[in-house]
């Protein structure tokens, strides 16, 4: 039997030694609670399962030339990161409950926290959360604890998938959730000013926003702070190698999706939610945290700390129900950031922006195509307004092996002609030229 060591002979011996029978093992389960034979196929050999999985994988289109983003990006992944993360001392371990046996995991958590603080311009980080959307939700809950208020304002340019998640999560908790519509693809200063009041715990914004627009929220942070609310900024971590950090803008809590830091798109997960904040909010932050301390001989070492916030101690009064972090994904992000380093990450960010601006130039030369939201700076994604329905263009380009982008009508019903186009460092000049050509002839 696969993955079971004991032979039938050993099982018999063991049962005899402890004076039990096979039937005794499950005697505590009343007979009426037992099930019959499961209707599940016979087991496959390793060869068969690999063949089966390969045939399933073969029915997914990963061969497309992709300009699809929407918060989830196809970045180049250095081979060394994979080699490190697949060391089984890391991936077959669990939560570092025994720090003496887990210094590898714990030091990596501390280094990850440090790297995320340095990237976002903040002072303290947790050891990661499930994904970018749940990280926003946890940040909102944290802002309620900090301000003891119960109302949240969220900008409409925050990823619509995350906004749907926030609506589900806040539904049972009596939180007043106000969503503010955008103006020309950007957070509307006047509408946000109107929406903020003295009961507001937090304002949630995103940069680059869902339309790809880079927004400096320094003024908005001041507006929120004037009302005693926190600014929660969701960010695309690659962009921070170049762009003004949320720390510099005055954000109080920074969150985001860390998939771009070395993880495959993997059809939606596992991903990485990150969260950093100011030192003064450290004890209100949810999630697992590693800290540096010493042993009895004065040697440096790392432990999980501030556990009095967590569910295993506080139970129903805990700051969050989260039990673990996304540890292996955090390790992936740390190895990615370490391998690329200070200059390499900047090269990646610059290359994304360069290729995206090159693509914008090419595509805007096509008759009938314009930028839906002109007058802004973009990072690696932008919205085109097409002369025909975006759905139709996507359909035609798929025939040519190109995933042209995302049709915004899926989340914004009045945007049927709008196509969200993303470009990463993986798209070559020749591919962008080809995309531009097939788009032009498809119209």
């Amino acid at each position, binding site marked *: 039997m696969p993955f079971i060591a004991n032979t039938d002979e050993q099982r018999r011996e063991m049962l005899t030694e*402890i004076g039990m029978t096979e039937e005794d093992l*499950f005697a*505590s389960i009343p007979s009426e609670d037992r099930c019959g034979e499961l209707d599940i196929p016979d087991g496959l050999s390793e060869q068969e399962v690999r063949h089966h999985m390969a045939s399933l994988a073969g029915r997914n289109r990963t061969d497309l030339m992709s300009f699809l983003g929407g918060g989830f990006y196809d970045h180049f992944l250095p081979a060394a990161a994979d080699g490190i993360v697949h060391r*089984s001392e890391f991936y077959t371990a669990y939560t570092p409950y025994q*720090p003496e046996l887990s210094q590898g995991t714990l030091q990596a958590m501390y280094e990850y926290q440090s790297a995320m603080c340095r990237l976002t311009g903040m002072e303290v980080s947790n050891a990661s959360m499930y994904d970018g959307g749940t990280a926003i939700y946890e940040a909102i809950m944290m802002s309620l604890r900090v301000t003891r208020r119960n109302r949240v304002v969220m900008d409409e340019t925050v990823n619509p998938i995350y906004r749907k998640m926030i609506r589900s999560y806040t539904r049972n908790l009596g939180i007043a959730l106000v969503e503010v519509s955008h103006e020309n693809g950007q957070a509307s200063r006047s509408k946000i000013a109107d929406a903020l009041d003295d009961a507001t715990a937090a304002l949630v914004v995103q940069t680059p926003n869902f339309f790809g627009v880079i927004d400096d929220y320094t003024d908005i942070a001041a507006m929120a702070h004037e009302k005693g609310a926190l600014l929660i900024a969701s960010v695309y971590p690659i962009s921070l190698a170049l762009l003004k950090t949320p720390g510099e803008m005055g954000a109080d809590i920074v969150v985001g999706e860390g998939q771009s830091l070395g993880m495959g798109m993997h059809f939606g997960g596992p991903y990485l939610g990150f969260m950093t904040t100011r030192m003064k909010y450290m004890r209100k932050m949810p999630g697992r945290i590693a800290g540096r301390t010493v042993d009895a001989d004065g040697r440096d070492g790392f432990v999980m700390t501030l556990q009095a916030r967590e569910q295993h101690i506080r139970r129903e009064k805990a700051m969050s129900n989260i039990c673990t972090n996304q*540890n292996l994904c955090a390790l992936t992000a740390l190895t990615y950031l370490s*391998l*690329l380093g200070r200059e*390499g990450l900047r090269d990646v960010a610059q290359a994304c922006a360069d290729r995206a601006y090159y693509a914008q130039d090419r595509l805007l030369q096509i008759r009938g195509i314009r930028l839906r939201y002109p007058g802004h700076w973009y990072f690696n994604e932008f919205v085109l307004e097409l002369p025909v329905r975006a759905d139709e263009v996507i359909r035609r380009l798929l025939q040519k092996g190109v995933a042209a982008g995302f049709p915004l009508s899926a989340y914004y019903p009045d945007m049927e002609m709008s196509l969200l186009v993303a470009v990463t460092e993986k798209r070559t000049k020749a591919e962008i030229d080809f995309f531009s050509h097939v788009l032009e002839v498809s119209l």
Partner: protein
Amino acid sequence: MKLIFDKSVSSRRGPRPVPQEMEMCAVFPAGLLRDKPADLPELSELDVVRHFTELSRKNFGVDNGFYPLGSCTMKYNAKVTERVSAYPGFFYLHPLLPQLPSGQTLVEGALEVLYEMDMLLREICGMAGFTLQPLAGAHGELTGTMIMAAYHRDRGNDRKTTILIPDSAHGTNPASAAIAGFDVKTVPSNADGVMGLDALAAAMNDTIAGVMLTCPNTLGLFNPHVREICRMVHDVDGLMYCDGANLNAMLGVCRPGDIGFDIVHVNLHKTFGTPHGGGGPGSGPVGVVEKLTDFLPISVVRKAADGSFFLDYNLPKSIGYIAPFYGSFGVILKAYAYIRMLGRDGLKRVSQNAVLNANYIREKLKDHYDLPYPQTCMHECVFSASRQLACGVSAMDVAKALIDRGFHPPTVYFPLIVHEALMIEPTETESRETLDAFIDAMIDIARLAEQDPAAITNCPKTTPVGRLDEVQAARKPDLASLGDAKTQ
């Protein structure tokens, strides 16, 4: 050992992933740029590989040795599942593809995996439908309790405010119920270590939205009254939630749905052999009975009459979005491959061997450590180090002494209802030889606790660091090295 940041050498470069084929097209105004570059390390690829290889050597995983961490099911993680999950046809698949026009045809293989996994879990758990979206066990609990809230709201019943949870439960149960908007009331366990009918009856009234039970419970015991408990809860239109963290004990033997549970979450990283990753990523699919399928999160994978698969977003009663997409797909793939390799008979062999191994340890150690609940256990057994504590040796000391003998310690101080708890879960993948070596080590520690307690209380001595000062860590937190990053 030095932090990776402290090994940095100015201008040293690692791998260069970006081809230099394009001129600079994006020149941002200075006001949009960060003041200083992010102070990330500057290292060669070899520097980085050596750093993390050294870190990995200070870690202990299942591949290093026996890891009987109770309630965590630290079984072997088959290498082949790592391989298949990383197939390019899965790894590079963009999650928004199915939302493109006729995009579901671009991801047929992935949708088939999700559909088939749903079917396998339904059969294993006796449920009518599953969502694979929850990203961890605790996330599954939250999803399940949100479904409870949606069910009662749909019936217009606003009196359902409270969830009952036994005192032996994992802390995530009350925490999840609380953030789904419920009050939590704790029910004490009876002398046999399970929720008794009297205690439940005393707590029961029509404000009870449901009961969360871990089955078998955290003492490794199957509650013989569980069917009656379900009936009592259903009588007040409450829902029964099964925390399936310990499903490994019951595979192919009994199914939560058959006993009367309405909702169950399973931990793919426990029962279905996917790696724990040092603490995630996990995956916590949730199954429900027929009357609750309308409340499952958006979206649900369905099979069309022509045999093709599609994502159904039209679920008006759904609790909504709980994850960005379809779950922890990379983890689901591993669990799917694992179940397909085990097959019907293999699943049953898992629980048979897991339960045998746990009882073997229980029986062999029961003369050396106190066993507060001495009955036949299921997948794990919980001892108490109270006898050793009388000699000055605590459960934590026993744990540290095991480290020096080459074993990962069991879970200690949990469940909370056992004084000086040592919670041991061997799993089915361990051999008799390993169990015997562990048993010998435990007996030796018990002997030393009486004869020479200092030999135990000064462990561990073989690790890169000794016992660390956790009080100082919490009192004066050092949580990050900020480098030259600007601080406020």
